[in-house]
């Protein structure tokens, strides 16, 4: 069940209605039940895998408290348990063919057949959440959860299951104890988040993804440079709106249950440098990486090399953090390059601070902030190339972006005036005009949010604009209902 389907909203609304009327002791079991039902819409097998996963972490958590003997060993075991889960279910393409061959050789598997393991929904997100759960217990930031049902809600809670946000147990679990009361303010916020999320997903992300031909990412050399540039812009905004839209929807739905989920995006393309970018893009994962990779790496290196400007202190923490981020997205060379590029960006932008401390971003001249935004966006967009395609294609894509073909403006004029037969659009070597309109609308949408200064900016919009946006959303949804394509969420694959 996708979170943009009518069935999802109706089911979630009914579930929240019942939840609000249940006695307190039945609320968490109810959340487990409906979340399990949600998982079953993908596969009942996933429920079993996630139950084993939850039980393992629950038991390991009980052994990880620092007042218990060998707690460090248990924490390490817990991390290995989670990483192993990830390897078995997500990265099995590395070993499954060989393992299948081995089983075939001993006669346990029929010749020619290959073992297949399905990736349970949201596993990558669950793994990082549980590692932080175990580490936080070991650092006394959190007491081990003693109620397995409550812990199951932490694992299975359906609004955050598919693609986060990556919630820390120490923040999420207390929220289960005291759900926010349903009042007008909460209902309005929920509506703003859901409407904003749906607009981002249905009106911006899906069309922008669709408008990029699939072969652009496999054979970019077949296209004119200007097309590749506009498709990269489209991809950058599609990816952002896809994930930000998803997060908005699930945060809004979660408020029906009175449970606040953390924000994940804060206008990342308004970032003035990459340090700021990583506080605005996939915030919950970035914070996790900062707290559990960057800071520990920095601290460990500082102990060995006390100078802040030592090459290792300067280079390794951001590089290691962003490489881990790349690996989290997928164990492939292109994801490593994507992570590596961002690590490199972070290192390079810190170079001037070796000589003199840089002024806080808000205090820098306006032109410098704008230039910073442009540069950050351009380099972030360039890094999306290996994020989307394998390395040989990515190299061709980067190369192809500089090989522009002269647009056939004469042909366009002749076609418009009727002196030439209509032969299609692609022959003119011009960007898809619909893509430009959607891109402009997506940028404008962000601009409104930026001016309003909050994610729920639709609450401040004039009535006519609110109504217009609802009409546009319904129009796009109606056309999508009739269209011949479907568009899953990109981050659901991670």
């Amino acid at each position, binding site marked *: 069940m996708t979170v943009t389907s009518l069935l999802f909203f109706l089911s979630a609304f009914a579930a929240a209605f019942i939840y609000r009327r249940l006695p307190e002791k039945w609320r968490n079991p109810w959340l487990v039940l409906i979340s399990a039902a949600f998982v079953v819409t993908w596969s009942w097998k996933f429920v079993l895998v996630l139950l084993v996963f939850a039980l393992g972490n629950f038991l390991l958590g009980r052994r990880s408290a620092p007042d218990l003997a060998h707690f460090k060993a248990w924490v390490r075991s817990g991390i290995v348990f989670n990483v192993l889960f990830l390897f078995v279910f997500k990265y099995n393409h590395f070993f499954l063919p060989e393992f299948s061959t081995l089983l075939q050789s001993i006669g346990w598997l029929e010749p020619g057949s290959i073992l297949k393991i399905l990736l349970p929904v949201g596993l990558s997100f669950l793994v990082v959440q549980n590692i932080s759960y175990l580490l936080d217990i070991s650092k006394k930031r959190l007491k081990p959860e003693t109620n397995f049902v409550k812990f199951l809600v932490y694992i299975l809670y359906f609004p955050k299951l598919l693609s986060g946000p990556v919630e820390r147990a120490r923040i999420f679990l207390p929220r289960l104890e005291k759900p926010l009361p349903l009042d007008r303010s909460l209902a*309005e916020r929920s509506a703003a988040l859901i409407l904003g999320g749906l607009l981002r997903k249905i009106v911006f992300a899906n069309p922008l993804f669709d408008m990029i031909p699939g072969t652009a990412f496999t054979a970019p050399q077949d296209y004119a440079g200007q097309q590749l540039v506009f498709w990269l812009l489209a991809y950058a905004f599609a990816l952002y709106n896809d994930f930000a839209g998803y997060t908005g929807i699930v945060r809004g739905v979660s408020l029906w249950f009175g449970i606040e989920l953390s924000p994940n995006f804060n206008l990342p393309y308004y970032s003035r440098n990459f340090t700021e970018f990583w506080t605005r893009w996939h915030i919950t994962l970035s914070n996790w990486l900062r707290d559990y990779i960057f800071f520990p790496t920095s601290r460990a290196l500082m102990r060995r090399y006390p100078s802040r400007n030592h090459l290792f202190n300067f280079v390794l923490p951001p590089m290691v953090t962003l490489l881990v981020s790349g690996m989290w997205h997928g164990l492939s060379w292109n994801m490593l390059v994507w992570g590596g590029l961002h690590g490199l960006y972070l290192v390079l932008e810190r170079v001037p601070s070796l000589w003199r401390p840089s002024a806080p971003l808000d205090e820098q001249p306006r032109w410098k902030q704008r230039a910073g935004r442009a540069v950050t966006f351009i380099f972030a967009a360039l890094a999306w190339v290996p994020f989307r395609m394998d390395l040989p294609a990515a190299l061709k894509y980067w190369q192809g972006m500089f090989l522009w073909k002269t647009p056939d403006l004469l042909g366009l004029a002749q076609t418009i005036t009727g002196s030439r037969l209509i032969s299609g659009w692609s022959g003119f070597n011009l960007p898809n005009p619909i893509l430009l309109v959607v891109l402009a609308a997506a940028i404008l949408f962000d601009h409104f949010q930026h001016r309003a200064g909050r994610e729920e900016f639709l609450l401040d919009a004039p009535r006519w604009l609110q109504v217009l946006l609802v009409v546009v959303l319904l129009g796009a949804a109606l056309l999508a209902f009739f269209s011949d394509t479907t568009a899953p969420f990109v981050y659901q694959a991670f």
Partner: protein
Amino acid sequence: MAQQTQAQTRQHKPGTHSLIVSAVIGVIVFMALLLILEGISRTAWFEHAVPVRSLGIYHNQFEIKWFKLQNYVQENGGVDLILLGNSMVNTGIDPDVLSSEYEKLTGVKLRIFNFGVEGLTVAPNSVVAKILVEKYHPAALLFVTEMRDYVAANGLEVENQLMADEWFAEQTGSSPTLRGWLKFNSKAAEHLLPFRNWSRADFPDTFLSFLRRYGDTTSAGYEPDRNVGKDIDKHPDPNDPAEAANFAMFKDYTISPERLQDLHHILDMGISTQPVIVTEMPLYPTYFDYFGGEEVHQQYLSSLASYVSENGGVFLPPIDWQLIPLEDRVDHHHLNLNGAPLYSTLLAQQLAQYCSDTNVCLQPVSGVNAGGIR
């Protein structure tokens, strides 16, 4: 800390007006707009002013033919003869020429529409024939067929996609869906459906191509082809990779019984119309290389003629291919805008000759309202 965040959240002040109320207003406005569109779409003025419509199926050309026929019937009060077949019919027969030539020879004025659609073999054509006969009640059908129609594996992709479409399911009454119902019954949907794939990468190309083809296709359903073929008289090379698929598909040619059954369904339409006429286009002989040569073709024609006659149809043998010069052809099986009027004239002569020989003549639909949409 968590509780602090929760408390902070509650402090968000709602705007001066409720977004939820705006959302409700938005839904009402949207519904009202749809109703207004539905109402306007049902006016003749709107249909004339905005001719671009769609059935929401993947086959653009089928849609063009469908709406052109709808317009044709509205403008002419009905249709007497519908031509069925594939792309060869689409570009190869000009109904206006056929009609005027036939009138010249017999004195009978026929309203003829070309419903030849690219890629449609006898299998989907049998379904299309039934739909058209039930909707427009023509006096006669002329089905232009060819050897490929009777190869079981040929044209399956088009057939499967077209027949699996919700609009067809709604037409034939099999597994109806909400979407299919809307596609079939809503005039507003007809005008929105051309834009349903607005976000696809190929939309500007396909939409412009749709507009062009819609404009190119005459009101009688004929779509002229301006191309002039090259090397039509050269035998196709079985070793040429571009030709390999054709040779593989049509070697060891046999007529599929299932496909004959589909032809039977078309011939059955003769019960409610005049006998269905079946013929073949004047194909250039190199075309038959794929099937094993002219001898195989003659065997096929002989079998087909017997089958058509035995099942109540009329078989007109193909006219002499040498009557259509090479420069009037696009390739060895399609005619261009010079070949089509020529063949249409020859076909009219053949039909008139058959009429005078057998006294079985094409006639317009009788009765005042007959032939209109019922």
